[in-house]
């Protein structure tokens, strides 16, 4: 089993933690798989070595020195996926299944899944199509709306369009939407490049930040009386929700990168909080039973509508005065698999990765049964 992580992404470091702590460790403890770590460096080279399973190689900063002594691997698509390790004698590692652990661009966005599809190898998690949709916040909203799921009012535009006529877009946004607004790069996860704005100057600055990261941006209305919730889900056809999770935030704030990954609590204010996505949220969310059910149903509907498989996490926004649940976005590879939430739902880390692998294999078996070629006499006419 190849666990692929890192990649040319702003979430490169988060991916390393997800891969090593949340995926490789429980996979190896399950004793069901031979795990091959595949690390994609920030410059896009692919490496594979057993030592890449050791988090201290990365946390100590010795990774660059280590990679300088390694030769990148090559991929071969002969009857599945083969990793070619160069050396005195080239080593071929036949991969039976890939566990993508890349967050953000060049991985979670469907690119890695597409390589697996080309190689005709099984892989874990959302497929190419759902990953592409989920990682495009605009496309995801359009599909959700088409399926009758409510989402905050928004405007989207490309970098080229905005740069061509900034004034038009800023005026159009102000005319269409009401402050406060959120400005987001359309394809990035982990809340990178997201800003909350309350006036035109802030809006302009925030859009300029967003287009630095992405060629497509999104501006949407903030939901009033906000309770933000997220729901991790497992499954291909039959879905299994974890517990609705509610970040502990002030009403004017939102989940940014620091809150999620660096400080363990609201921007360092939380004392003794844990690292990562633990310690700053309520699991299960503190909602009335009906509203909890409504949010859970919305999450499952979004997962289905977008065609997710394996696992994904659906983020939702709730107006607590009106009890309206809005779809916000989908994360097709939740950081650290959101295992803290699954643990509280009664699924251990080992069970979680084993279930995900089984789901990946089930989907592969199902898609492999489909006919992919069609015999015709078309060429004989020439």
């Amino acid at each position: 089993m190849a666990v692929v992580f890192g990649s040319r992404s702003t979430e490169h470091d988060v991916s390393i933690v997800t891969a090593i702590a949340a995926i490789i460790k429980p996979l190896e403890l399950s004793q069901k798989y031979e795990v091959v770590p595949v690390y994609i460096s920030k410059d896009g080279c692919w490496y594979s070595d057993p030592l890449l399973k050791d988090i201290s190689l990365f946390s100590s900063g010795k990774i660059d020195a280590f990679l300088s002594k390694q030769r990148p691997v090559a991929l071969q698509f002969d009857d599945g996926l083969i990793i070619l390790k160069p050396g005195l004698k080239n080593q071929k590692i036949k991969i039976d299944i890939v566990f993508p652990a890349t967050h953000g661009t060049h991985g979670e966005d469907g690119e890695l899944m597409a390589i697996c599809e080309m190689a005709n190898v099984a892989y874990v998690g959302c497929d190419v199509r759902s990953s592409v949709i989920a990682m495009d916040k605009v496309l995801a909203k359009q599909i959700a709306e088409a399926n009758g799921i409510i989402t905050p009012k928004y405007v989207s535009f490309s970098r080229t369009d905005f740069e061509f006529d900034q004034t038009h877009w800023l005026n159009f946004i102000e005319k269409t939407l009401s402050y406060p607004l959120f400005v987001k790069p359309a394809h990035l996860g982990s809340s990178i490049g997201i800003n909350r704005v309350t006036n035109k100057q802030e809006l302009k600055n925030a859009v300029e930040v967003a287009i630095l990261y992405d060629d497509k941006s999104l501006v949407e209305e903030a939901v009033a009386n906000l309770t933000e919730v997220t729901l991790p889900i497992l499954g291909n056809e039959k879905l299994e929700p974890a517990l609705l999770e509610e970040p502990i935030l002030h009403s004017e704030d939102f989940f940014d990168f620091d809150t999620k990954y660096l400080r363990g609590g609201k921007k360092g204010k939380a004392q003794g909080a844990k690292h990562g996505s633990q310690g700053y949220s309520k699991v299960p969310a503190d909602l009335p039973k009906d509203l909890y059910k409504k949010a859970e149903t919305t999450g499952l509907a979004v997962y289905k509508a977008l065609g997710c498989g394996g696992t994904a996490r659906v983020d939702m926004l709730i107006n607590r005065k009106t009890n309206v649940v809005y779809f916000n976005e989908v994360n097709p590879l939740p950081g650290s698999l959101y295992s803290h939430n699954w643990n509280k739902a009664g699924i251990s880390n080992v069970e979680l990765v084993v279930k995900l692998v089984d789901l990946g294999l089930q989907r592969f078996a199902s898609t492999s049964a489909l006919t992919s070629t069609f015999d015709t006499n078309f060429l004989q006419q020439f």
Partner: protein
Amino acid sequence: MISAIISLYSPNYVNVIAYMLQNSEYRVGSYLKWFWRTQNFSNVIRRGTLKKTTPAVALVFGLWLGIILEIAIGLGFIWAWHSRNFTGGWEFGVALIIAYPVIMAHLVVVPLLLGRWLVINPRNYLRVQAAERVFIDHKAVKIAVAGSYGKTTMKELLATVLGEGKNVAATPANKNVGVSHAIFAKNLSGKEDILIIEYGEGAPGDVARFARLTHPSRGVITGVAPAHLDKYKTLEAAGQDIFSLADYLHGKHVYVNDESPAAQAFIKDKYHRYSAAGALGWKVSGIKLAVSTTKFKLSKGKKTLDLSSKLLGRHQVGSLAFAAALGLELGLSREQVTAGIDKTVPFEHRMQPYSLNGAWIIDDTYNGNLEGIRAGTQLLTSLPARRKIYVTPGLVDQGKENQSVHREIGELIAAASPDLVILMQNSVTKYIQAGLNSGKYQGELIIESHPLAFYTNLSEFVAKGDLVMLQNDWPDQYV
């Protein structure tokens, strides 16, 4: 074969030898047996690590020094052959260098044996002689606790309950052999009201010898089960040794756990029996079991006590009832007894519950007998959980009964119907599996070949709603 030979010359070999000695508690016989049984020294340290104690560090240093000296002597012989034509010097020198792992592994026991014969044994003899006089002269009620299982828990239980109203001293932790009793005696103030002395039997004659040293006035026998059968050979021999405590007391003030099936053959009419039904005339009712507490009512006539303990399981109720009843008999008030029972908590690694990742773990890894397994599997059955997991490597030192004991363990586990059974792979795994099969176990079975990785990463295997029973220990010196 090649990797086995290479392991003898690995830089870690010295640590492995020191580790084997440390885990054998520096007993030369069991160390040498382990050494000669071992085929590959790179696979020895699986469950633990070498603890850097003073003796261990001295051993490692001494071994390295010895190896360097031996190689130097070997080189000296080769040099003598080369420059002085010393006949046989080359062959002897090379043999000496090649054989250093085996030679040093044996030479290392010489200082240990000399130390034991010339220092430790004479010193212990003198200590024991002095201790007997202390025990004879001491006016306290002296309660001896013997049995194949549950004796440390009983000792702690009695010390906690009786300590509510009396000045009590008890032998520390599991220090339960003659020399430990002697050290215990040396530290007594003479003002104690009650002494509680645990007897750790290991070979025929041990309990009688401990009784002659400590002169108990009362004796508690917690049960008889297959344990240390490598020395006792039969369960009957183990029972006879344990019940030699009752013989010493001429049957007076002898209290026996009536729930021990193997003890029944040794119980005489004049002994007092205790069980979950009651003790010393007090009757037990209303037992309520939970994952962190055990509650019950104790009554005699119109007198009633509502008791709550953090000791887990129905099998503890008899011991708790006995401790309470004995406390009352020795003059404690009902309030003192109730408070004492309330303070009873599991001894470390003995039915000790803790929460991990939302799951409840019951750590009973110090259990070393079949009755403990019976109690553990019964507790697992009685407690509610989303998923029940049972983990064991099996029992060591089961002698001729090894196969039948482990088959019975498998059947006991099967009867508890856990969702998942994890067996630490070793020589008895196949017998437990046979018991699981004959008990028609329907759940999932995992054979774990890396126990240390499992125990240290337990949090990765459990989630909220899980109940995990961890029983028994399998030190590295056993296969």
